[in-house]
Each structure stands twice: as C-alpha cells, then as structure tokens.
C-alpha cells in the first residue's frame, strides 16, 4: 500500500519547508521546544526496511493491525484501504507538516463507508529502528456518515531515529471515532506527531494522546468543529523522567453553534524532565451555545522537573459556556502519610499515588488490550525512575 502521492504537492511542500525552515524557539508556538539538535543530524531514509518483532504488537487482538518499520508498511492487510488523499493537514503554515508532506511515506489510508460499524479496533504500529533514520508516515482516516471506528496508533522502536508523523481524521456527519495515540518511542529518539481532526455535523470524536517515550516529543492536535452539534473529547497523559522533553499542543476551533469540547491533559514529570501543555480554544463569532471545558493538571516529582502550562481561550461571541484551568502540584503529603501509616514503603506509596494520578486518563480507555498495555508500560517505567529521583527530590 504505497501512498498515492501527488508529486506536485510534494514539491510545493518541499518549497514551503525550505521557506519556513525548521521551527525555532523564536516562534511563539515553539518557544519551549528546541529542535536545534535535530537539525544537526543528516537524516536519511531507510530504503529497505525489514519486519521487526516488537512487544507493542497487538496482533490477534486487533481487528486490523498494520505494522510500519521506518515509515514503510511491512505487514498487515487493510480491508478498509481507500483511495483517500491528504486533505486537511496544514502544510502551508506548519513546517513539520510541510516536511512530512514533502517526504511522505506509507501510512494507513482508511476509509470507513457510511453506516459501517467496525468491531474491535484498528491498530497502526510504527516502529523506528536504527540511528540517523527519519520517517514521515502519513495517515488519512475518512469516516463516513453514521460510521463508527476505533483507531490506535502506537509509536515505538530502538535507536536514535526521528519520527515525523501526520494523521488526518475526517469524521462525517454523526460519525463516532475513538482515536488513541500512544507514543512510547525509544528514549533516544525524536518524535513529532501532528493530528488534524475535522468534524461534520453531529460527529463525536475522542482523541487521546499518551506520551511516555522519546528524548524529545512534540504532539500537536488540531480540531475543527465544522458542523453543528459536533463534540470532541481530548485526553492526554505525558509522563517524563531523565532529561525528557514532552510537549503537547492542542487547538480546538469552534466554528459552528452547539458544539462541545472537553479536554483533560495530565502531566507527570520527574528528575530533570520538562513538560509543556499549550491548549488553545477558539470560539468563532458564529459558534453560539458552545460548551467548552479545558483542564491541565500536572504532578512534579522532583524539584528540578519543569512544566509549562498555557491554556488559552479566544472567545468571539457571548453565548458560550467555557471554563479552563491548570494546576501544578506535588505528591499530596497527607495521602503519602496515610499509605505509609499502613505499612506500605515510601517508594511504593509514591508509585501508587503517581499511578492514581495517571489512572484517571488510563481508566477511561475502553479498549482493554490497549489500556492494559499502557498501564504495563507505565508500571515498567516507574520503578527505574525512583532510585535516581531520590537524589534530586526533597
């Protein structure tokens, strides 16, 4: 399933990227994330990727699993393959999307016909492998009117590679889409992921982002509520330690009336990790009766961990119900004392409280194998963090 790509589009995107250049911290949206280390590397494409076994596979448990290595499809049959093309990703203004568009590789092209309800879930597994390799997967998911589908993207791998992925989701009238993005890249990898979601009247989309891997990861989700009564839920969890940098940007654009957006992002930062949440909500003049809630909550586990939280509301009409908030806190001393007073050791008590914080997001996932995989990955990551943390906290 090699992507059908318009060569003219590639060329125009390449020109755009040449013009825009790599984002720098002088650009407001990139103020807290520095891509300079990526620019120094002479990235190359893996011309001959081979199938690799990876524990992130959900093989038989997914209705469909497509496995990509370094941006090329290596296994899986796609019964929903359609001749759908890139449509909504903003390559003209977003340099990383332009870079992806110019170098676009394989990715899932999925078309769910109107009225079709897909049982189970579709798993797209992207494996990065090797040093100095970059990949530019492009997923286009078109969901017809009244159709329903659950899609899970997992990003994993070994080595210091760079994944620059773009996913476009076009949800038709009253379509129901459940989308999960699980970024568990190698700790020396770089990851930039852009998700564009366009919702028609009455469409209901949930998109969640879980980021625990990569030396540097940037996740951007842009939603346009383009039809009346559309509803979107964005959920996010980012858990970083060491010197990880995990950046999350979201934009929800309320264009039409009677739309709803619900957003909750939670961050857990340990050691010298840095997290970013930048959430923008725009309510256009015509979007009366908008309901929008946005919340970002962060837990800092060391004195050197940093989080930048920036929720922004831009409201251009007065018939709306919007609220947003952001909190940054430490482990609750009372809760810690309570657990310890029952005989549970300090490290285990801290772990329990961190998982309790994260579980609010994890528990909401309806797809059991994915939920359990995420839970396991969180548990596996946690004990390693503790011995080192001790030196830096308290």
């Amino acid at each position, binding site marked *: 399933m090699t992507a059908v790509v318009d060569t003219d589009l590639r060329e125009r995107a390449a020109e755009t990227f040449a013009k825009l250049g790599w984002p720098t911290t002088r650009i407001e949206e990139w103020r807290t994330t520095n891509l300079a280390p990526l620019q120094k590397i002479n990235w190359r494409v893996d011309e001959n990727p081979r199938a690799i076994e990876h524990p992130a596979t959900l093989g038989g448990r997914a209705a469909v699993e497509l496995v990509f290595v370094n941006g090329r499809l290596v296994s899986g049959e796609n019964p929903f393959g359609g001749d759908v093309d890139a449509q909504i990703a903003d390559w003209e203004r977003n340099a990383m999307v332009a870079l992806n568009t110019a170098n676009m590789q394989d990715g899932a092209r999925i078309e769910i016909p109107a009225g079709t309800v897909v049982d189970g879930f579709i798993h797209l597994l992207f494996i990065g492998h090797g040093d100095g390799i970059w990949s530019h997967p492009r997923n286009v998911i078109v969901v017809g009117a009244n159709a329903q589908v659950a899609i899970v993207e997992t990003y994993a791998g070994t080595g210091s590679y760079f994944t620059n992925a773009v996913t476009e989701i076009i949800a038709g009238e009253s379509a129901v889409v459940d989308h999960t993005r699980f970024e568990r890249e190698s700790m020396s990898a770089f990851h930039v992921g852009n998700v564009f979601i366009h919702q028609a009247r009455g469409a209901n989309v949930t998109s969640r982002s879980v980021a625990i891997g990569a030396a540097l990861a940037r996740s951007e989700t842009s939603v346009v509520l383009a039809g009346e009564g559309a509803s979107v839920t964005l959920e996010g969890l980012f858990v970083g330690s060491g010197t990880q940098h995990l950046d999350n940007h979201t934009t929800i654009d309320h264009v039409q009336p009677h739309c709803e957006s619900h957003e909750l992002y939670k961050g857990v930062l340990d050691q010298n990790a840095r997290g970013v949440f930048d959430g923008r909500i725009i309510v256009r003049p015509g979007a009366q009766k908008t309901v929008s809630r946005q919340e970002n909550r962060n837990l800092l586990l060391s004195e050197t961990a940093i989080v930048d939280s920036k929720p922004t509301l831009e409201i251009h009409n007065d018939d709306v119900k919007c609220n947003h908030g952001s909190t940054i806190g430490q482990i609750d001393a009372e809760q810690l*004392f309570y657990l310890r*007073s*029952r005989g549970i050791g300090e490290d*285990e008590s801290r772990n*329990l409280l961190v*998982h309790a*914080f994260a579980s609010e997001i994890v528990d909401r996932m309806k797809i059991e194998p994915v939920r359990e995989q995420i839970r396991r990955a969180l548990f596996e990551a946690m004990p390693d963090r503790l011995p080192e943390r001790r030196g830096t906290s308290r």
Partner: protein
Amino acid sequence: MLEIKNLHAGIDGKEILRGLDLTIRPGEVHAIMGPNGSGKSTLANVLAGRPKYEVLEGSITFEGKNLLEMPTEDRAREGVFLAMQYPVEIPGVNNIYFLKAALNALRKHRGEEELDAIEFLQLAREKMKVVELDESFMNRGVNEGFSGGEKKRNEIFQMAVLDPKLAILDETDSGLDIDALRIVAEGVNMLRTERHSVLVITHYQRLLRYLVPDFVHVLANGRIVKSGGKELAEELEQKGYDWVETEAVA
C-alpha cells in the same frame, strides 16, 4: 508494650506535649480524654510518625525498640496502627488493592508468606461483615466519596485486617451516630485479647460505654493530670474537665 517517658513534642515550633508519661501493657485498653487543645491528637500523630510533628525531649519504646527512630511504615510493620481522625481520600488507589499491599508488607516484615488474591479476599470479606461495610466499597478508591461514618468504619475494617498489636483510635467516635458507634466498638472489642492493646483518644465518654477501658487518663496542657479506672470517665462526663484541670494546678 508501649512506654512513653517524659515526652515533649509539638508542631511548627510550638510545644504541645509537656512531659507525658504513659505505659501500656499487652491486653490493656487505655483511654485518654481531655479538652480540645490538650494535646490528644498530637500524641496520636507522634506515635504514628506523622511528618511535621517534632519530638523535643523524651522517649517512646515499643516492645523494647525505639519507636521514634522508625519511619512511619516500619511502625506499622511492627504492629502500631492509627485509626485517623480525618481519613484522607485517595481517588485512583483501589481500596482492596491498597489493603492487600499493606497486609503483605506487614507479613513480609514478619517473615510470613504473602497472601494471594483469593486468600486475601476471604479474609477481607470476613472482616467486612464485622464493620457492616458493603463489598462495593472495596472496589472504590480509598475513602473516595465515603461518608464520615463510612470512613471511620473503613479505618476499623483496615485495623481488623491488619491485626495490630497496638491500635490507636484518634477521636474515631467523633461525628458517629449511635449505630456506627456500636459497630466501631464491636470491631475494636474483637481485637481485645491478651496480646493486643488499645489506646482510645476521645473527647467524650460515649464510646467508652461500648468499649470499656481498663484505665482512663486525663490529658490537660500536654500532661496526664489524672489517671483512674473506667469510673473516671463517668465522673468526667458529669463534672466536665474543669475540675481536673483546677485540681491539677492546685
């Protein structure tokens, strides 16, 4: 079992306990009564090792070991249990998972084999009946959305499962209706054997009707000013605390 000598302790640089002495032997039930601000809760918190409470002078030994040198979790593992006055809610930490982790931490410390899920559930169900807690509570977050009375009963439930050598009840009776009070007392009475001791900290005498103490002590201004048998509690109920305080000063 527990020996407190000349204990001076406080919080935020303020001395609250000023030379408290108390000895509890195995099998005994002691009640500490006193007006607000007399240092009752400070004593409970110092025994459990709550952070921020400072011991300025004196010693506490538990079964011959220096309790003050132990971190909070080790005190619990040695057999000290504090039923808290205000149990905290911990959403996201499953009640039953938490209690199993606690019991197994205690068992591991004692060199006993850990209980598996089935064995643990069997034990938990049995103890749950005593405190009349519905099983549905077990799968919720620790104390999450529990009423005041349910939180207190959950404390007693945890105590029954963990089977401590010394149970400290910090105003467990406050805010309880008569039925809940009776349930709490029954839970504690089940623990009364020759190897268990109980320290009941309370403002009122009413819990002591169901949970009859061997000794009653009156705490005022950070010291025990009067000790006696169960009849002292009744006397306090009738006369209030003023007479003891006056007597102590005189």
